[in-house]
């Protein structure tokens, strides 16, 4: 079953607990700079928008990887970076049009959301339920997909 993180910006207060939980889970330290989910603060509008990988079908990162370091977790559809295989070439960081793959200079590897193996820490850490984890077809994922299609390299008629 394809699952995904669904975000409700209206509920977000910008506290960054999601970033803390994410970085702790992934890096073992509290370090928002290494979080796979990022909260953007639109100060002038009083809006906070958490943002991370939608595990898109197009999987730009996966296809752009020259060494097969990004694979699909069949249990939830997450695109997962294998640290053992990633050489740090960063092609995926420019290939992902959503900007959700980042290069970690400290390790020489790229980092992205892997849905924590199916139990996302950001969801549990959010004090205002601004992040939910649910089946992709129940979510606003279609909205993001339509957006993704704008970037798609191929327009497929009937494909």
């Amino acid at each position, binding site marked *: 079953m394809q699952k995904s993180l669904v975000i409700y910006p209206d509920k977000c207060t910008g*506290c*960054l607990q999601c970033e803390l939980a994410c970085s702790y889970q992934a890096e073992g*330290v*509290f370090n928002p700079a290494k979080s796979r989910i990022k909260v953007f603060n639109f*100060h002038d509008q*009083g809006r*906070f928008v958490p943002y991370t990988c939608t595990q898109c079908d197009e999987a730009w990162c996966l296809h752009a990887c020259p060494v097969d370091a990004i694979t699909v977790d069949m249990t939830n559809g997450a695109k997962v970076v294998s640290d053992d295989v990633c050489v740090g070439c960063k092609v995926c960081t420019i290939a992902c049009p959503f900007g959700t793959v980042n290069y970690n200079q400290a390790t020489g590897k790229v980092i992205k959301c892997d849905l924590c193996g199916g139990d996302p820490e950001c969801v549990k850490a959010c*004090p205002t339920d601004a992040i939910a984890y649910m089946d992709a077809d129940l979510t606003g994922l279609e909205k993001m997909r339509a957006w993704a299609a704008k970037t798609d390299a191929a327009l497929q008629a009937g494909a």
Partner: protein
Amino acid sequence: MAWTGKILRVDLTKGTCTDEPLNMDWAKKYLGQRGLGTKYLCEEIDPRVNPLSPKNKLIMATGPLTGTNASTAGRYSVITKGALTGAIACSNSGGFFGNEMKNAGYDMIIFEGRAKTPVYLLVRDGKAELQDGRGFWGKSVWDTEEGIKKKHGDPLIRVASIGVSGEKGVKFACIVNDMHRAAGRSGVGTVMGSKNLKAVAIRGTLGVTVDNPKKFMSAVAKGKQVLADNAVTGQGLPAMGTQVLMNVINEVGALPTRNHLANQFDGAADISAEAMAEPRASDGKPNLVTNAACFACTIACGRISTIDRTHYTVAKRPQYQIASGGLEYEAAWALGAATGVDDLDALTFANFICNEQGFDPISFGATVGAAMEMYEKGVLTKKHTGGIALNFGNAKALTKLAELTGQAKGFGAEIGLGSKLLCAKYKRPALAMQVKGQEFPAYDGRGIQGMGLTYATSNRGACHLRSYTVASEILGIPEKTDPLATKGKAGLVIAFQNATSVVDSAGICVFTTFAWSLDDIAPQIDAACAGDWSVDNLLLVGERIWNLERKFNLDAGFTGKDDTLPKRLLKDAAKTGPAKGLTSGLHKMLPEYYQLRGWSKDGVPSNKTLSRLAL
């Protein structure tokens, strides 16, 4: 673990940045942030130094929890000798600056000396360098923050800076980070300006660790649950902010009004949290856009507001037709009740200007209130004020003075003296509602007796955040006491002072204590930090910090005679409400306070007390 173990020393005179190991013996005795910063300051400066001389130092300090996922753990404090008070100053700020400092590898930054020309400090992951700040001198906090991010091409840099008011010596200038969070009180921004230090810009990506992660995660989770389940931290503060207090405090007759001439304000409802949520006529939108959290805060009491676009303050100035930091209770009180102004948009605008130009809305509003009283009494005239009709309730006078004070221009430069110097200048010292040079915040010591003692004994001058007995006397936290009684208040104030010293030294926000006692906080500190951090030890640490601050002030020349209140509170009875007929019972509470503190009748800590606290 928890501490980075490293401090950064910046010698502005020589232009050098040097790393030093943190003194861990001191960390064990003073925890961090307020306590540890005060220890360093006391060790390194002569308490009699002129606050604005190069010999004063300015310390930015985080706590051991800063940067962790403990709720509200993003705090930092600025410790220095205050420009407004000449006393120990310790101003605490939220936002996202403290955690960034920690992630850049530093527990603390010590600034000393004075730069020849304006500079700012740039820190990136353990690398610090002074940069030419002349291009930013004369710029507002908002433009400086934006400008530094742009100059270095990095929107993720966090900036703490001063505005023009801090450059030009307004005595109550703040250091503002993240556009509208501030180390607000006592003129810490004025000290920064005197050092020709415009800003501190930090980007940190190193990460923060704790001593026992498993224990820590569990203690933190429990703590968050307590905050979520509590009516104040779980519902009241996120929904209404600290402004939830406006109507409450007015009803108990403790809302100081028009420079404390009254203790209830008929315009209170118009400037309250309820008013901020009311849709306005022009566009159907309320003043309040959303609540906002500081780093790691699961309460989110912060206000993000807009000003009515048709309001005179912004109608022709689109740059202020934005959402930005809205009114907190203390600011709403000072800009509103203390001046008699009930125009919510004017207050919000004045608040924007305080953030934009970096000055304390409490001291500013209270000083304007004092000036208004002098104007109404004929001591000040339009000749003095540059033509401003400084009557109580005049919104346009308030907003005009906010803009002038932000630039230290015209009569704004005189407001920038603070109420004590301003009233002394015009020979009406009794009209300054202040202790040790610092203006009162939003609680009347006649209607809430504990707050009178709080102000009189606060080490940084009048302040509600040193012992917020309002919690007990009005809200019943941790237990209800009678706000009109003096009995037992000395002990209550001391308990709050000691516990708050711990909270301010840990890296977390004092607002957690609406729900948390030290029983909730100690396990989080204990799991994060090596060593014994039981409740008992923490209380001892808190008492030690309080006495260290006291010692600094005594050495700086303060005496027990400074632990007092303006005559108005001691002699003039409250006129309305539950406190009608009451004056402050300070004379009953203070001797008991000294005694319980183990101080002499003149307010000097005894040798026995000092040795008990290992001071």
